[in-house]
């Protein structure tokens, strides 16, 4: 797999899996507004994944759905941050949204400035939509800033957040989050997977696997 396909799949997998995780709040979020917000954000992240899988499919002479659903769990290139099952903990869920959006923003900005015209154009479109996800995350981060549970959640997920961006972007992410990217930290980086990914994959691909080759 070439460098471009790997980059496209990394971001697409992040967006698909974080979208899946966010969608798990549909129906059980603490307020009706958050139920709507998480459902809408999830739908949009998965839309971004779709557009990125389409570019990756052209690169790999494959099919976007096949890339999204027919790979084995250990072939996914997402960062462990998006894999974690946090549906029992709202503070951690908000901490992940907050950290993920900050990391994703750095990555998108870099793509917009890249020489890859096709990917830069798509990144510019994604960036406009992400503005609303960032507002949502910022609003919650400001509201929970002094809550010990939220602070502990951010600290706990921080080594995972560092794994979302390229090593060269880690210092900038640390500056934006207000935490340290001390080299003694064990970063949960891309390529490693948590056991939660296999569980998610089982559920996510169950219907598709039930009738291989069916047209939905």
């Amino acid at each position, binding site marked *: 797999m070439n460098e471009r396909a790997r980059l496209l799949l990394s971001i697409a997998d992040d967006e698909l899996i974080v979208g899946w995780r966010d969608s798990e709040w549909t129906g059980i979020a603490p307020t009706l*507004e958050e139920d709507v917000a998480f459902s809408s*954000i999830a*739908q949009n992240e998965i839309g971004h994944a779709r557009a990125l899988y*389409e*570019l990756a499919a052209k690169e790999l002479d494959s099919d976007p759905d096949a890339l999204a659903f027919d790979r084995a769990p250990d072939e996914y290139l997402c960062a462990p941050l998006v894999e974690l099952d946090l549906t029992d903990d709202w503070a951690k869920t908000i901490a992940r949204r907050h950290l993920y959006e900050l990391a994703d923003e750095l990555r998108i900005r870099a793509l917009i400035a890249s020489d890859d015209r096709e990917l830069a154009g*798509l990144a510019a*479109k994604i960036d406009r939509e992400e503005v609303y996800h960032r507002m949502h995350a910022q609003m919650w981060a400001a509201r929970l800033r002094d809550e010990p549970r939220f602070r502990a959640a951010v600290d706990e997920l921080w080594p995972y957040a560092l794994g979302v961006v390229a090593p060269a972007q880690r210092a900038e992410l640390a500056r934006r989050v207000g935490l340290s990217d001390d080299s003694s930290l064990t970063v949960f980086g891309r390529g490693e997977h948590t056991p939660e990914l296999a569980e998610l994959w089982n559920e996510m691909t169950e219907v598709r696997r039930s009738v291989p080759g069916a047209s939905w």
Partner: protein
Amino acid sequence: MTAEEVWAAFEEIPDPEIPVVSLVDLGVIRDVAVDGDNVHVEFTPTFLGCPALETMKRAIEEKVSELGGAAEVAVIQDDSWSTDRITPAGREKLRAAGFAPPAPRAAGTTTLVQLQSNAFRCPYCGSTDTKLENIFGPTPCRSIRWCASCRQPFEQFKTI
């Protein structure tokens, strides 16, 4: 078949989720080129998370085949579509149907402070005594606001 005829036909294709506006009103048809029976259409999606994209693409193909042509729809996945491309007629149709049209993007990226201000006009009574209820609504392209004057919730088209 001329490009003008194709454009006129596209004005009859309703948006799948807000059927008061057509695809032409939405500004998602960027270009139409007719070459004999072949019609090349450039289409720019609205929100990437919009589930109506496939439906729109199919509707374009069906409309061209009703005219006796064959459509080739190129989906342009860049930032060339923004809510500024919604036509004045489209904005008026949105307002009449109870959707506040998007604020101009020309003024820059929308901020939370702007959304939380009462700068948005209620599409029912025209009052600006409105507040943000939720950045997110029933589809990715809409927010929910509340009008304190006529005591109605209403949907606000997001600026992108």
